[in-house]
């Protein structure tokens, strides 16, 4: 009897996993807008400044520097459509990943990946909200971007 209960519980867990996973996957897909998709293509680690485009004149840029003590400033506030640039001056490899560690699910577009010392990462934020991130290689180094 006890074994049957456990099997039933196991089946329920499995169903929950599949259903929940599909639900969240569907949600993640639905929240992607065309502009976000195009932003993703700009996210690869780079130390080169991209050539100016007509929209750059209207786009503000906030800079966050990663040093050995963490991200500075820890919080930045920008407008929708503004860009945040992260500079790695920590002397080590680091990453910018969406909270929480280690699943990075809060805002997948913030999973910018790794950047070595001297390199930069950048992201244009197209949606209002508060987005928390961290260095995956040292999750105590955290920061957040508030988009108004």
């Amino acid at each position, binding site marked *: 009897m006890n074994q049957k209960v456990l099997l039933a519980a*196991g089946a329920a867990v*499995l169903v929950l996993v599949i259903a*929940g996973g599909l639900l*969240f996957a569907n949600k993640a897909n639905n929240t992607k807008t065309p502009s976000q998709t195009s932003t993703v293509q700009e996210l690869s680690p780079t130390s080169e400044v991209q050539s100016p485009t007509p929209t750059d004149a209207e786009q503000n840029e906030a800079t966050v520097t990663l040093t050995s*003590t963490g991200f500075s400033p820890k919080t930045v506030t920008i407008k929708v459509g503004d860009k945040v640039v992260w500079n790695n001056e920590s002397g080590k490899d680091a990453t910018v990943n969406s909270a929480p*560690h*280690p699943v990075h699910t*809060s805002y997948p577009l913030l999973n910018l990946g790794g950047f070595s010392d001297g390199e930069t990462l950048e992201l244009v934020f197209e949606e209002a909200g508060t987005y928390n991130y961290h260095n995956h290689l040292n999750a105590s180094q955290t920061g957040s971007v508030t988009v108004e």
Partner: protein
Amino acid sequence: MRNLLHQSKVQLSLFLLLIYALNLFANFSQHAVISVFLAVSAAVLSDFIFLKVRRVKLFFPSAAIATGLIIALLTDPNLPFYIPILASVFAILAKNFIRIGRHIFNPASIGLIITVLLFGASVSWWGVAWEILDLTNFQTLVPFAILLSPAFVSIYRMKRWRIILSFLLIYGLWQTLIFQKISVQFFLDPTVIFFSIVMLPEPMTTPNNHLRQILFGSFVGLVVIFFAFVFPVFNISNLDPLISSLLLGNLLFFRLR
């Protein structure tokens, strides 16, 4: 001495020491040396005191040493020294007094979560998170192999592989569904590996029955992602989803051990 070395907790402590030594070799920090010394000392000393209070016969504190080492490897090394000390004391306190027959919660996890809740301390996984395996870089193999070394205890000695595999399977499935891609990195992430082979299969707080082990591992894997979505909604992002889900699993399964 030889008998001592055959104890699984002593072996686990040695492997954890190896991981810790690797950190010192890769990035020496005086603060981290003092922090680990204090965390382990606090765990051993408090275990001694609480066992005396409970009038339990004293034994070699291998579990307390392992708890102190785990706490030291996970607590942000830049935090004040009292944080790892208190995390160790809370861990051992819970191990000795929150129990029905056996202790209910994974000691290191409960110690860490209490310091997060009381002092806003962060769980940084600093001692393990950087040991990423890069198949194109041979130099990353050694740190990764050392990271995997505790699996000898949890998989070979304690036979807890069902918990580990079921957790990784569900966790990987979730990640695959959420990010719409299959990546071996979901399973090879150092934080996830350390959690699954060191913290998750702790024998005193997990089921012995094989089917229940699979259910336990699956449950924790399921709840990790659930917490990852729920915590930010309630603005409690500093709660670690891995550690929180393990504690919930301990609580729900302690009657099914």
